[in-house]
C-alpha cells in the first residue's frame, strides 16, 4: 500500500470513530459520547505523532545521503556538504515540530530546510558559521534574519522559526516530499 493510501485509510478510521461518537451522542447520551470523542481525539494525536516521527526519520536519512555528496556534485563546481552542517541540520530537524516540506542542498555546500505552502514560503539555510532565515507570506513583505550557526542550538531561537513557519500554514504541515538531487560519484 502506498504512503498516501495508508494516510487515507488511517484518516478514514479516525473519521469513522468521530462518526460513532456522534451516533453515541444521539443514541446513548453525553457521557458515552464524550468517551467516544476522547478516543477519537487520542487516535488523531497518535496518528499525527506517528506520521511526524516517520517523516523526521525520513528527513534524517536524506540528510545522511547529503553527507556523502562529493565536490562538484552539480557539475558547476558545487561544494560537498560539511559534516558539521549536516549534524546541525539534523539536530534542528529533530527539534522542530513543524517539519520542512523540502530539504535542498545548495551548491555553496549549505543545507536549506524549506517550508512552502499556499500561504507563502520560508527557509532556514544552515551554514558552517552563519545561518539565514527567510520568510515571505504570499502578497506580504519578506523577512530575513542572519545569525551565528551556534544560535540554532538554542531552543528559543527554534521556537521563533516555528512561529513564523506556522504562520504560513493553516494546519501543522506534513512533508509533501523531499527533493533529493541525484549526483555522479
Amino acid at each position, binding site marked *: 500500500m502506498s504512503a498516501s493510501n495508508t494516510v487515507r485509510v488511517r484518516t478514514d478510521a479516525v473519521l469513522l470513530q468521530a462518526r460513532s461518537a456522534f451516533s453515541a451522542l444521539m443514541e446513548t447520551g453525553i457521557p458515552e459520547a464524550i468517551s467516544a470523542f476522547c478516543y477519537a481525539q487520542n487516535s488523531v494525536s497518535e496518528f499525527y505523532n506517528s506520521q511526524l516521527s516517520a517523516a523526521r526519520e525520513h528527513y534524517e536519512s536524506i540528510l545522511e545521503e547529503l553527507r556523502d555528496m562529493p565536490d*562538484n556534485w552539480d557539475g558547476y563546481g558545487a561544494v560537498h556538504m560539511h559534516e558539521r552542517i549536516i549534524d546541525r541540520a539534523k539536530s534542528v530537524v529533530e527539534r522542530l515540530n513543524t517539519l520542512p516540506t523540502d530539504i535542498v542542498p545548495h551548491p*555553496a*555546500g549549505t543545507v536549506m530546510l524549506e517550508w512552502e505552502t499556499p500561504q507563502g514560503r520560508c527557509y532556514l539555510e544552515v551554514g558552517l558559521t552563519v545561518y*539565514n532565515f*527567510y520568510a515571505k507570506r504570499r502578497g506580504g513583505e519578506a523577512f530575513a534574519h542572519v545569525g551565528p550557526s551556534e544560535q540554532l542550538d538554542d531552543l528559543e531561537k527554534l521556537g521563533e522559526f516555528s512561529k513564523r513557519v506556522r504562520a504560513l500554514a493553516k494546519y501543522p504541515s506534513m512533508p509533501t516530499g523531499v527533493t533529493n538531487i*541525484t549526483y555522479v560519484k
Partner: protein
Amino acid sequence: MTSLMRFPDPVIEHEMIVRAALDPYHFNTRKKPHRKYAFHAPWGADSISAMRGSLLTADECKYNAVTHIQDSQRVYKGFWTIQAACIQKVGASVFPTPADYEGHVSIHYGVVRRRHEGLDTPDEVLRYNAVLEGLTDAAQYFEDEDCSAKEWKGLPLTVQCCAEGSLPNTIESATTNE
C-alpha cells in the same frame, strides 16, 4: 553579417534570454524541471550563465548547450526562457560575455556566496531571494523532445513579456524548428 551587428552590446530589454536545463542539477527526483535549482548562483560568483535567445537560433542555443555546457555529470534536456526586462525588473542585471562563446551572457545577482556559508546580512538574503523568486516566476521551461538530434526538437521558444512598450506579448526565437 558581422558578429558585432548580430550581437549588439548591450542586451536590450525585449531580448529573450535562454538558459540550458541540465539533468540532474535542474530536475527533482520525479524528473520534473525544478525552477529554484535552475537559477541558484554558485558559490564564489554572483552570476549564472545564459544565452541571447533572440539573436541565436534555437539550434545554435542547443549547439552551445551540448558543446559548451553538457558533460559527463550534466545532461542537456531543454531550455528556460526569460525576457531581459524581467531580469532587470527583479533587481538583477544581464551582460554579454562573449569571451565564453558567441551569444553568451551572464545574469548577475549582485550577491556573492561564500563556500559552506549562508549570506552575511539580511539585506543580502532579501536581495538574493527577490532575484531568485523573480527569475523562477518569470521563466518558462521548454523540453527538447529529442536531445540526441542536432536540431532543436521542442516547441518554438517564446518568452513572457515584462518589458513596457508596443511589442507583442511573446517574442519567438530567431528561428524555430517549424
